[in-house]
């Protein structure tokens, strides 16, 4: 009996396995598909004034356009549109590549029958290759050309199986000083993968003009938080959500709370926090403390003081605020330049932090002492310092070029800007020669505190090339260049009357036009604020956080965040791939 069975099953089993193998391999092979990117959208419906889930009832929406682009190289790979009513779409065989972005534009029909952007959003930049596996994002579409509250996902665990959305706020759990998480004088950075970092700041400031006088602090935050744009979540590093308490021994928060410091990106998830103002015995003083934030490290180890190889804690000398800190990747150093001491002294000191050894060394001096200046890294790996002020020289238009070679610093004067500026906005631009920047607004006189209402294009080695008017003089603003259109956007600041300013878009007319840029619309913030921090995300949105705004008849720091959406999607053919 058994023998018979074996004789029967003997040939059958290999056959079964052969078929199984063929079926498995064939099925998988025939069904071979590339990796998938799943995206779920939610949005803020500006017309309705509320967040909407999955856009089913987004007022006026007609179609969704999905575009694959590589914004760093201004490439639009493919684009397709779908009726909003479809609720979902599948796009097969999108082109592999690095620094890729998927853009989503909600389209409405204008009065003249054109489909125009109603809201948009995009993934962060990501790499996708044949061996990449699936990934997923949940993204907020922000209304076009206006400010929208930044959404946070939440659910009532007892009553809701669905997520809802509300405006995100800084996490006030576990703050060292307790109480409110609103802030100004905080600093931000953008980590890879769609994380936005927020570092410290002051919950209350007496003097907020930032016109060359030293702010008087009533408190400082020491927290480090980040907002995950792809999940819609604010994370306070120093708070343990699992145990529902602050981390032990002050872990994952700054050793020195501060405001008006610098945050410099030194890696995809690493940042250097340098200097700033802090409080000692109730007095506003400068700190020289240097701390590293590394989001890739374990919880409890993500914030640490800069130490050399012997474990000695490093600090700036002199301690100061309103300096610049510029990262040079090739020698892996950060160059600290200038700054303001609380006694009103403006310094010329230049220090170099060697991130390999963790040491800071005094490297020399600027040609001109300066504070509230700007600095950018050039294409050749130098540090270009522009503008600023000093008591003796007043507002500056001079620029300097700092070169670091074998740890040694050399300083040379470069061609100046057209106008003296400090507390101004600056961005690098892609058009024109290498190392071109645009500087906008700021104070132009240290004595009169006059503000300036122009922008200028400045080219390294050549000086100011072009000047154009802003709608009004503004100080304390940020400027961003849009990759696709080369348009500019100024965000935030205060006008000559001290009123908060929203966003202004400047359309690029071409470098052969009589005026390179012309104002092309403006937007007011949802909550008027100044002293906020702004960052441009790789998704194209600009995120504005904190600042000072009005509450009733008094001014308070804010704990809310807003997006400004300067729609900047490179047009692509409507015919799919």
């Amino acid at each position: 009996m058994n023998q018979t069975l074996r004789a029967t099953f003997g040939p059958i089993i290999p056959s079964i396995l052969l078929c199984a193998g063929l079926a498995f391999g064939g099925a998988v092979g025939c069904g071979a598909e590339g990796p998938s990117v799943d995206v779920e959208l939610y949005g803020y419906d500006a017309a309705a004034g509320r967040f909407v889930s999955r856009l089913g009832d987004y007022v006026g929406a007609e179609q969704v356009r999905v575009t694959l682009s590589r914004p760093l190289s201004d490439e639009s790979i493919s684009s397709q549109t779908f009726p909003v009513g479809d609720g979902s779409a599948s796009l097969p065989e999108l082109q592999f590549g690095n620094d890729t972005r998927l853009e989503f534009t909600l389209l409405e029909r204008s009065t003249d029958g054109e489909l125009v952007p109603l809201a948009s959003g995009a993934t962060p930049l990501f790499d996708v290759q044949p061996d990449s596996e699936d990934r997923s994002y949940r993204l907020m579409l922000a209304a076009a050309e206006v400010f929208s509250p930044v959404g946070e996902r939440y659910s009532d665990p007892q009553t809701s199986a669905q997520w809802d959305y509300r405006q995100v706020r800084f996490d006030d759990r576990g703050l060292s000083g307790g109480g409110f998480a609103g802030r100004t004088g905080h600093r931000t950075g953008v980590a890879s993968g769609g994380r936005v970092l927020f570092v410290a700041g002051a919950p209350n400031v007496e003097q907020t003009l930032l016109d060359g006088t030293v702010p008087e602090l009533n408190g400082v935050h020491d927290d480090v938080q980040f907002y995950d744009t792809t999940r819609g979540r604010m994370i306070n590093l120093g708070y343990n959500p699992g145990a529902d308490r602050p981390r032990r021994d002050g872990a994952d928060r700054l050793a020195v709370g501060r405001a008006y410091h610098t945050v410099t990106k030194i890696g995809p998830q690493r940042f250097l926090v340098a200097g700033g103002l802090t409080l000692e015995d109730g007095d506003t003083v400068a700190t020289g403390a240097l701390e590293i934030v590394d989001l890739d490290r374990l919880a409890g180890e993500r914030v640490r003081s800069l130490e050399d190889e012997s474990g000695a804690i490093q600090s700036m000398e002199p301690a100061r605020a309103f300096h610049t800190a510029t990262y040079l990747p090739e020698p892996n150093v950060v160059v600290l330049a200038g700054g303001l001491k609380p006694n009103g002294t403006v310094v010329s000191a230049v220090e170099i932090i060697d991130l390999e050894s963790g040491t800071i060394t005094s490297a020399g001096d600027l040609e001109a002492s300066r504070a509230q200046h700007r600095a950018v890294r050039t294409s050749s790996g130098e540090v270009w310092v522009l503008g600023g002020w000093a008591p003796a020289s007043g507002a500056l238009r001079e620029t300097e070029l700092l070169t670091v070679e074998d740890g040694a610093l050399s300083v040379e004067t470069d061609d100046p800007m057209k106008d003296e500026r400090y507390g101004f906005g600056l961005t690098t631009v892609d058009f024109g020669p290498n190392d071109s920047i645009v500087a906008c607004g700021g104070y132009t006189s240290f004595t009169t505190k006059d503000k300036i209402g122009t922008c200028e294009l400045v080219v390294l080695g050549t000086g100011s090339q072009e000047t154009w008017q802003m709608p009004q003089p503004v100080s304390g603003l940020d400027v961003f260049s849009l990759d696709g259109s080369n348009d500019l956007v100024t965000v935030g600041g205060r006008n000559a009357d001290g009123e908060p300013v929203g966003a202004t878009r400047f359309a690029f007319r071409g470098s052969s036009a009589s005026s390179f840029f012309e104002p092309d619309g403006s937007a007011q913030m949802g909550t008027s604020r100044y002293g906020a921090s702004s960052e441009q995300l790789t998704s194209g949105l600009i995120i504005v956080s904190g600042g000072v705004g009005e509450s009733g008849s008094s001014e308070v720091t804010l704990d809310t965040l807003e997006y400004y959406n300067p729609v900047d999607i490179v047009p692509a053919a409507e015919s799919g791939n």
Partner: protein
Amino acid sequence: MVDDSAPGARLLATWLAALLVASPVAFGPTTGWAQQQGDASEAGASEGAQTSEPSQASSEASQTPTLAVLPAQAVGSGIQELVPRRIGEMVRDRVSGDGRLDTLPSFAVMQREEATRVRSTTAINEARKKYTSGIGLIEAGEYQRAADTLQEAVDLLRANVADLQNFDVLADATAKLAWAYYEAGYDFDARSYIKEYAHLRPDASLDQDEFPPELKTIFEEEVNKVREAGTSTLTIEANQEGATVYVDGVEKGKTPATVDVRFGAHYLVVKGEKGRWTSQILVRGRDTRETYEATLSQPERVEVEEEPAYFTQLLSGIADGIFGAELGPELAEFVEQSGADDVAWMTMQQRDGEFRAIPFVYSADEDLYLRGDTVTFDLELSNLRLGVDELGKQIVEMTLNTPTDRAFQRVDLTQEPEADARAEADPKEEAPGQTDDQQIEEQAEEPSDTEEPAAESVQPPPPIEDDEKDGKAGKWILVGVGSAALTAGLVIGGVFLFGGNNPDGFQTEVSW
């Protein structure tokens, strides 16, 4: 008015009774598992004021870490959902069986228990309201309505006695019910309930000024009867060893248990993983021996609502294969709701013709994410038992020791190289005589704690019958030939996979 043995205790009892009535926070419907535990502690403390014995609630406290094990998640395509699900359940059983951790039941079971508890809590709260109303009606002289109301309260409390955290409510309501019946002219019922109260609280005394003297006399006579009759030795057995035995709300031991109980009517409750069993028993006393067989069963199934968003998002975040601190909010919510100290899960991927399983543990107290060694299974799951054992062992060790050298900030399983450090389970070390298919079949017969009927089952190759003489040789010949055939099939299939159908691009799914 009920009078405990000491004036202080009476005053405390009065205050507690007032608190029961006045505090909607303390006794309103609870909304989460962790809150349930918190309420239990409160109730245990209040009972502790009147008895030195451990209560149902206080017995829930434990020093060992409480671990919640999430369902295992498949990462990436190419792996059947059933495989990680079944292996995950086996790993959970392995962890639970280790005994060094308090392993929570699956989310589905917790959710159902919670729904059941909420229903029970709702009933108990309703009973409390009726109890309070009954007292008011007695004081107002409306004894008939008081009797009706208190009867409803007692009935509700009896029906939910297994979930009753403060047993004094039932005892006190019994005494008040006797009083109401007496004043309403129902002498028989009054006698019956005051005797029951004497059985439950023989050390108490009735307030002279409030209780009718005749009732007090009956009570005292019954108390004397209880004292004279002494105790019986009760042996309580159940269809589950280790189930907890409670008599009148006080923990008495684990099944099989032997306890001495005084004469009279008492409430016997047995609670364990298999469910609960309750009975009102009549103890004869006089050193007799009595045996009770408790058949534990799950309470009537309560329909549960959809899984909450934080839980589904937690699982989908793990299934994405890219996770770490960003799971914090969902994990925090899960920890808060479940009361777990640690959360474990397992991912499974299919790569290079094998299943790769990785155990993870989240330590809520340290906010640390720990990753264990990869354990591989071949596609036939020939090393199933050893692999499951290894995964379970790693989870237990990581939970107990929180090894920081295994901590990570973020993992991206989708981008990891094919080869990494693995703790491979050697199939040759399998116990002799147990074939792979037997293992999976045996495991498949184990009741699933999710209690979800499997839509499909793992289909191992058909069992091979063999004679005793040359069975081993024949088996290995067959396996060898079969393996060669399988390999040939995979190679041919691989031609399709890697040769002719290499993807030309990635695909995007968008929903809005």
